[in-house]
């Protein structure tokens, strides 16, 4: 197969970027999009040019490292597919593929297709965990979880934190991501004790970052490589409202978001 890859090249956050076209022939239809970039990088290296920088790790769709926009769609045209699992046979030979990084205020560009997604890490730090004593593994049957709850939690837990939802959202909102994290822990009995604080703190941190607000457009769920549904945003809003009401007396002063951590960002 033959393609023209029109790729966004930008040396660093402070320098101007531009699209550069790279013609490619002999592309195997079985190659993944990332492997196609690997092949391109090999030829660039042989020519003495700088390879295209892009994030990648597991290449089996579970780590969340990779991701970029292809022809205007985050992770490309296939539904529920991340770019490492997107094979070239899904494109027509001769096509021009416009490849650019996630574009969002909250994800400052580092280089070429790599963006800084530490804003996601800070949201997780704010409450995306459960506090339990470690040591011996608990008895598997000690805490019973109904099939419905287990399924619902798992549907949210499949979020790999790639950032496609933010990149696809016209507002640059991270509601789907934060919602998935809040939902998957809050639905399970192990996550219930911290449910209120989790919703309050994670939403506060999300608001402190440079994400926009959710206006129920739904593009996020459309591009999500794991097909996470908008329901998680409703769960987040419900948990947040519930916690705000329960703690309304304490909340007269707004919860201070962890702004000081943002100062580390360059």
């Amino acid at each position, binding site marked *: 197969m033959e393609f023209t890859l029109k790729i966004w090249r930008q*040396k*660093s956050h402070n320098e101007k970027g531009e699209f550069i076209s790279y013609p490619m022939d002999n592309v195997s239809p079985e190659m993944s999009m990332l492997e196609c970039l690997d092949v391109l990088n090999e030829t*660039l*290296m042989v020519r*003495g*040019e*700088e*390879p295209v*920088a892009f994030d990648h790790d597991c290449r089996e769709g579970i780590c969340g490292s990779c991701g970029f926009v292809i022809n205007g769609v985050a992770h490309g045209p296939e539904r529920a597919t991340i770019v490492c699992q997107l094979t070239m046979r899904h494109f027509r030979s001769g096509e021009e593929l416009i490849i650019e990084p996630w574009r969002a205020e909250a994800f400052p560009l*580092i*280089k070429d297709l*790599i963006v800084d997604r530490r804003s996601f890490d800070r949201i997780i730090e704010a409450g995306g965990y459960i506090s339990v004593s470690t040591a011996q593994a608990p008895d598997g049957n000690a805490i019973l979880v109904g099939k419905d709850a287990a399924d619902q939690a798992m549907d949210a837990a499949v979020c790999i934190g790639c950032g496609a939802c933010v990149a696809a959202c016209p507002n640059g909102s991270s509601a789907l991501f934060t919602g998935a994290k809040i939902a998957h822990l809050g639905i399970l009995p192990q996550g219930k004790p911290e449910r209120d604080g989790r919703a309050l703190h994670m939403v506060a941190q999300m608001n402190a970052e440079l994400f926009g607000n959710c206006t129920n457009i739904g593009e996020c769920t459309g591009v999500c490589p794991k097909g996470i549904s908008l329901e998680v945003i409703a769960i987040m809003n419900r948990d947040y409202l519930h916690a705000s009401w329960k703690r309304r007396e304490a909340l007269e002063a707004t919860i201070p978001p962890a702004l000081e951590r943002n100062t580390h960002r360059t």
Partner: protein
Amino acid sequence: MTRTAQGLDTAVGEIRALREEFWQNVTVPGSGDDLNQNLEKAGRVADFFELAELMCIDARERNESCGGHFREESQTAEGEALRDDEHYSYVAAWGYRGTGEPPELTKELLEFHNLHPSQRSYK
């Protein structure tokens, strides 16, 4: 997988030659001024040359068979691993002493008070 003293000596020589070639001929595109994934990878390859050489040196030093380390020179008549507890009852820790310098061996002796090691049998 088995090892011999001669094979390990050959390996050390080959790794050193490869490492020398790497440092002479390596091409790293880009610069060190911004994020450079290729520089990162080149650094990892350089580390692996040192690690690979050290693994061979360590295996060469231990003239016995023990666990996954099977030295052909040290086996029973039946072809089973033969330990040499008199000389090798220690855990080896190697210290880096600079490029081209042989690493320094520190031994942490294994002392057995109640249960004493004996020849294993998987039969």
